[in-house]
């Protein structure tokens, strides 16, 4: 009912507005999806690779999971590290809540479609125009469909790439891209460097599969403390 009160434009055109606004950024996600599919399919079946895209639908965590599987990490450490990366979704979910509150029935769907990209596009939109849960869902759906197609392409096509074409490097190159996109500010750079060095130093101390997670917690905590002590 609340939908009808709010709706001026028809259902599909509001969904489409969100999808259209997200298309440019969704296209920039395609190479990551293809690379994820190619990397993940080296240690999982095509079905499992796609299952992760369908159910987890969080690029960075999927990449880290694929990378840790390739490095032979334990499943528990992969799970904990993946959850740790996705903790930031709590913040975005809390921030988007007032904008989708008018459509309670859409909330379970909106939750699954929450990503950095849709969050950024929708918050920019709601800054300028009235909140619309359907805009957010349309944005999320566009990204969801493109992510599935890209992952599937990577999983199918990656297996066909013969050795010697540098596929072993797809993961490292993707991580480098993501670092440039996600690390912000001098403090962010220092925290990232500290985490990298710590993860290497900790390997003999902590079980090697946990070193990434322990190093991240220490580096992020130090970064937060440094700012609070200033």
């Amino acid at each position, binding site marked *: 009912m609340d939908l009808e009160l709010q709706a001026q434009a028809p259902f599909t055109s509001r969904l489409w507005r969100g999808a259209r606004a997200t298309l440019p950024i969704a296209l*920039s996600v395609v190479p*990551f999806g293809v690379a994820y599919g190619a990397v993940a399919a080296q*240690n*999982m079946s095509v079905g*499992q690779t796609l*299952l*992760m895209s369908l*159910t987890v639908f969080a690029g960075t*965590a999927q990449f880290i999971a694929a*990378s840790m599987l390739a*490095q032979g990490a334990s*499943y528990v450490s*992969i*799970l904990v590290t993946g959850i*740790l*990366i*996705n*903790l*930031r*979704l*709590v*913040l975005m*979910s*809390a921030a*988007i809540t007032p904008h989708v509150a008018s459509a309670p029935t859409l*909330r*379970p769907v909106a*939750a*699954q479609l*929450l990503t950095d990209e849709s969050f950024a596009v929708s918050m920019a939109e709601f800054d300028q125009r009235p909140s619309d849960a359907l805009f957010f869902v349309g944005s999320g759906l566009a990204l969801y469909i493109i992510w599935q197609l890209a992952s599937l392409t990577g999983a199918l096509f990656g297996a066909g790439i013969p050795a*010697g074409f*540098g596929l*072993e*490097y*797809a*993961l490292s*190159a*993707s*991580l*480098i*891209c993501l670092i*440039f996109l*996600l*690390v912000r500010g001098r403090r962010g750079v220092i925290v*990232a460097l*500290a*985490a*990298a*060095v710590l*993860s*290497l130093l900790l390997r003999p101390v902590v079980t*090697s599969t946990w070193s*990434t*997670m322990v*190093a*991240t917690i220490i580096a*992020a905590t130090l970064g*937060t403390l440094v*700012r*609070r002590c200033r």
Partner: protein
Amino acid sequence: MSITLLILALALGTYTLRFLPLTVLSRANLPEWAHDWLSLVPGAVLAASLAQSLLIQDERLALSMDNAFLLAAVPTFLVAWRTRNVILTMLTGMTSYALLDHLIL
């Protein structure tokens, strides 16, 4: 635990993180330091994971000039920094690695 179970567990955990604030936590405000801490986490995980993928070969630290993973990171970083172009960066990384691994080292 099979890989399928791992995927489903990660999916369930991730969905909980996405859905909880939309329901029970909707009015809870996280303190400023928690925002700050969470904003630093993704970059730190990525950097730690990259360090592992470049510098750990066969379970040992490989800080030498014949580590093709490490050497290929140099052009890859330069292209990422200069162009901010995902496709170009990936191609540079994969090509550099293939050349270093098969032709030079």
